[in-house]
């Protein structure tokens, strides 16, 4: 985490970005609150006057009723001011929180996939919920109370100076170490407050993982170990919170004991002065009466300061994410994609390099100068070993990641020069891990279709057609057909079923370029064959890039490109490559030279019984000894 050298005041000033519209009402709330406090201070004075005045001297019932009426009026006014404080701050406080929350969410939607790869979900969630809740409470309560308490203390000390200046001076001198201690406290507490919030975020991450990974934990019976890990983290958080309390208790002691201790000195001094006839006994009494009023707010300052620092830590964490620059943003001067040629769009990868952000400097680029052309309307399969960068390459086209060198061109335009929305309208993806949302089948399939661009009837036909191509006839057997809610909050589907709906979704988007990332891996052979046949017919005219591990997926493609050690080492027809390209043969059949020096499995080579010559004479590969 970056070390912030900003003062808390400066840090809190950044809150202005969201709080500005609410400021007048917060100020009004503060005034109401201050009014209520001062009124509460005034009532005892009025009572004293009433008791000393009409009751002792006059003695008429009318005066008593009048006095009671005055006290009643003041009391009602105080209640009104209390209500005003709430009413003034209520709406802006929660509105600021909502604005900040939706801004954060909007930012997270904007930030590229690479950002989300690095940030654990729990850390983001704790920022969106508990950190913002803290900021809201501070804004509506902490800030106002801090101002009110500080003002009360200052006014009170002023009164004390006015009643007995010598004693007031002693009190002020005594207050100096409190200020110093307060400063020390701020330094100590700031760090623990931040640590506690970070740990709470880590805890949320652990919770999230334990829930998302529940199947793995159950399959291996590791619930107990997960609990131990969680308990350890929760215990860490507990000790940080205790540490926080210890730090706070030190300042509470100082704020509670020091001013009172100074008063003890003042007491001795005051009485001595009175004995020397340098001060009056009345003033002494008044001084201590005021001091008693001031002590409350001064003691409260510790808690309020702690709350402020907690809110500051929360705000820092929030700002950290909201201010993250977007590395994959829209261009300043976007270019429009030209109309595609009659046969379809052309995708060109020119000397494309890619490495994951945060990859160690000595490591090689995942994509190390890829040159590849996908001709208009053709289907090109991308074949390579697990981890060769196929998926990364596929995700460069819709700019889910950005190249770190070279360029991806769609119909001659660098994809980085096109607005993301336009680019992603032109490019649709079906991911390896099908991601479905808690919505009906229909909504999931139409995810990439703009609502206003299509009539309901046409949309219905499109859904049907897309599901048909993906061989997802099973949806008709679902309880509510196309209206069945699937995803987390709905019906659970099998991996193969989810994959087919994700595929239908990519098809329904009717993109210029379709990117299919191993889209059929979870399908059984018969279904896969059916989907492949229909896809081939449908994809005519749609430029398609399909990531493949299997011969059955390659069957979709017109041509195949081999990705090997970050480069394209061969492009051609499946049968040609199988005959000539040793690495290709190895990837698809595990026959031929083996870069990991493991001989092919005998049982399987017998079963394969290929027509193509089974070659051992492959060229040696530079990456073999990786």
């Amino acid at each position, binding site marked *: 985490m970056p070390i912030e050298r900003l003062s808390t005041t400066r840090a809190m000033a950044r809150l202005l970005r969201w709080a500005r519209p609410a400021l007048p009402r917060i100020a009004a709330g503060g005034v109401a609150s201050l009014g209520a406090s001062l009124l509460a201070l005034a009532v005892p004075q009025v009572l004293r006057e009433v008791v000393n005045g009409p009751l002792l001297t006059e003695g008429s019932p009318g005066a*008593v009723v009048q006095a009671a009426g005055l006290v009643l009026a003041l009391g009602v006014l105080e209640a009104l001011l209390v209500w005003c404080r709430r009413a003034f701050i209520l709406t802006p406080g929660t509105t600021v929180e909502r604005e900040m929350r939706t801004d954060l969410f909007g930012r997270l939607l904007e930030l590229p996939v690479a950002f989300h790869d690095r940030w654990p979900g729990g850390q983001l969630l704790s920022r969106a919920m508990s950190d913002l809740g803290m900021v809201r409470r501070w804004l509506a309560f902490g800030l106002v109370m801090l101002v009110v308490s500080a003002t009360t203390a200052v006014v009170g000390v002023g009164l004390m100076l006015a009643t007995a200046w010598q004693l007031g001076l002693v009190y002020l001198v005594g207050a100096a170490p409190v200020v110093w201690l307060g400063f020390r406290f701020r330094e100590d507490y700031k760090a623990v407050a931040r640590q506690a919030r970070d740990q709470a975020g880590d805890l949320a991450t652990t919770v999230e993982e334990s829930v998302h990974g529940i199947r793995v934990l159950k399959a291996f019976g590791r619930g107990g170990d997960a609990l131990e890990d969680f308990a350890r983290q929760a215990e860490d958080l507990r000790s940080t919170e205790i540490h926080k309390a210890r730090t706070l208790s030190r300042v509470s*002691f100082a704020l509670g004991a020091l001013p009172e201790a100074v008063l003890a000195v003042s007491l*001795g001094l005051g009485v001595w002065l009175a004995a020397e006839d340098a001060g009056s006994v009345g003033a002494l009494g008044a001084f201590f009466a005021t001091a008693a009023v001031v002590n409350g707010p001064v003691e409260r300052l510790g808690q309020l300061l702690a709350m402020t620092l907690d809110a500051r830590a929360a705000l820092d964490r929030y700002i950290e994410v909201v201010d993250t620059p977007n590395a994959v943003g829209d261009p300043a001067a976007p270019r429009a994609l030209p109309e595609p040629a009659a046969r379809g769009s052309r995708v060109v990868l020119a000397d494309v390099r890619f490495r994951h952000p945060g990859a160690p400097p000595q490591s090689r680029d995942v994509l190390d100068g890829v040159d590849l052309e996908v001709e208009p309307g053709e289907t090109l399969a991308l074949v390579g070993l697990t981890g060769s960068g196929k998926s990364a390459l596929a995700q460069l086209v819709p700019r889910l990641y950005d190249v770190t060198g070279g360029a991806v061109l769609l119909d001659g335009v660098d994809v980085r020069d096109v607005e993301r929305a336009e680019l992603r309208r032109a490019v649709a993806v079906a991911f390896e891990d099908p991601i479905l949302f808690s919505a009906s089948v229909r909504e999931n399939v139409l995810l990439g279709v703009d609502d206003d661009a299509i009539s309901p009837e046409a949309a219905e036909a499109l859904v049907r057609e897309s599901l048909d191509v993906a061989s997802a006839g099973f949806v008709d057997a679902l309880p509510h057909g196309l209206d069945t809610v699937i995803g987390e909050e709905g019906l659970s589907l099998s991996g193969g079923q989810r994959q087919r709906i994700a595929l239908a979704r990519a098809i329904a988007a009717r993109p210029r370029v379709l990117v299919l990332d191993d889209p059929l891996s979870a399908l*059984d052979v018969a279904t896969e064959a059916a989907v492949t046949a229909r896809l081939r017919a449908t994809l005519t005219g749609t430029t398609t890039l399909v990531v493949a591990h299997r011969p059955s997926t390659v069957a979709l493609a017109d041509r195949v490109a081999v990705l090997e050690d970050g480069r394209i080492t061969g492009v051609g027809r499946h049968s040609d490559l199988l005959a000539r390209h040793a690495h290709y043969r*190895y990837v698809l059949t595990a026959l031929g030279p083996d870069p990991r020096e493991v001989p092919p499995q005998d049982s399987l080579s017998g079963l394969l*019984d290929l027509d193509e010559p089974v070659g051992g004479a492959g060229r040696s590969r530079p990456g073999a000894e990786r």
Partner: protein
Amino acid sequence: MSAALLEGADVDHAHVRRLSLRLLRSLLRPVAGPAWGTVALVVAAQVAPVAGPALVAVAIDRGLPAMRDGDPVPLLLAAGGYLVAAVLGGALTAAVVRAAARVSQAILLDLRRRVFRHTQLLSLEFHERYTSGRIISRQTSDLDAVRELLDGGITTLASSALAMVLTAASLLLLDWPSGVVLLIAVVPGVLLTRWFQARSQAQYRKQRTAAARLIVRFVETMTGIRAVQAFRRERPVAAEYGRLSEEYRGASAEGIRLNGLFDSGLTLIGNVTVAAVLLVGGLRVLDGGLEVGVLAAAVLYAKRFFSPLTQIGMFYNSFQSATAALEKLAELLAEEPSVPEPARPIRLPSPRGDVRLAGVEFGYGDGPSVLPRLDLHVPAGQSVALVGETGAGKSTVAKLLARFYDVRSGAVLIDDVDVRDIAPQDLRRALVMVTQEAYLFSGSIAANIALGRPDATRAEIEAAAQSVGLHPLVEQMPQGYDTEVDKRGVRLSAGQRQLVSFARAFLADPALLVLDEATSSLDVPGEQLVQRGLGTLLAGRTSVVIAHRLSTVMGADRVLVVDGGRVVEDGSPSALIAAGGRFAELHAEWRRSLR
């Protein structure tokens, strides 16, 4: 099943509230000692400052005349006493801060552990119904609400209640008619509190539900951020989140508004009472029924009586909010695991891996039967492949074996013991299931592999990685086995993640291995490596393999073709190919795809 339905309004609120109060009591019980200790500290901290004014009086009444007589001792004693009271007061305040934090943190830790443990115990059926987002919201935002109560709760309640009782008692002793006026004021106070309780309860329940919805949406969006961006759903998703944020804001604001009314109402009642005490007392003074000095004191007492009320109002507010959260948590904790741990577990110290499904009938939830009636015996040491179309019921068989679900009728037996009776730790040691979904936890690669067997040494972890071909990949990583895998292991490809799953299974070294589409994302060489490794590992072990890839199936001793929850073909791969049934068709198709 939608969240709205689960969080529906027709829940028995009284029952849920009882559950939540019972939960609160059970949380307080273990910390009862420290909690009472904290209360005692609070009381002491309240009393210490009271000495202050008395000492001032002593200093002026006794110290001043003595000083004038040239005797500084009484003054020094009074000032010294004041100093002691000051330090003592500060020390007690500090002690209260620490003690309260200790109690509240102990309760929170206990609650966190309970909820976490319970969610781990609950079956997959529950997890699928409840959704991950809501479980997360229980463990984050609901716990935050409880925390808010605990942070200020005990001390506020103890100090305020004590102050009020003491003041009321003093007033009654001083002048009982004024005391009676004060006590009459309690009636509207109680009525107001009842009103607030009823209204705020409903409000805070709404707020909890709104928070959960917000979190569910957040988690779902962030988990699927790729699809959101790729399909340009940013705007609609943000609009939906904005709507939910507004719903949450509305619920919170309404809660704050109610609390504001309650707060102002209490202040009003207090102030009216002070005026009433003044009026009644003043008239009595005129009658000569009351001393002026006593009236002054009575009015001040009345004023003081109501001043902690704001604090109590605040406490009650956070109490209401926390109770709503506790209700949600108590409901979660009251969920019975539908796959319960056996009452009298049978140990399985050295499992052989004999598997039998006897007349098994099963369906998900209240849904239709997926397996109408299945009988199957896999002798120890046999490797069996299940083949069939998507939805044929293959995965269901695997999940029943692993006891992710329990059968509706019939039984699943391992070594002739019903899986429902096997001690859970023995079942997990005997059987490991590797699924298509290869989830990685944040932490190092080594820690992820060690999930298979947490006490494994580094050498064993590396050996496991070696045997599935993961080792060369890990060696390339910047910190080798100590390389952290990012959230959801995104930097590893799906295939690499599946290799990690296999390494886990190797390390776990079970008697019975169930593979459910565990190789779907592996490339052919990777799959062969895994199979070769498995061949070594599984020699003499039982394995049940579900795969669409015939390459995975061909090495099995026996193939079962499943359709509609029934076994339609059963035999060795070569025998089935020779027999010319469905499997032979699949095999022919697969061969064609290889050209």
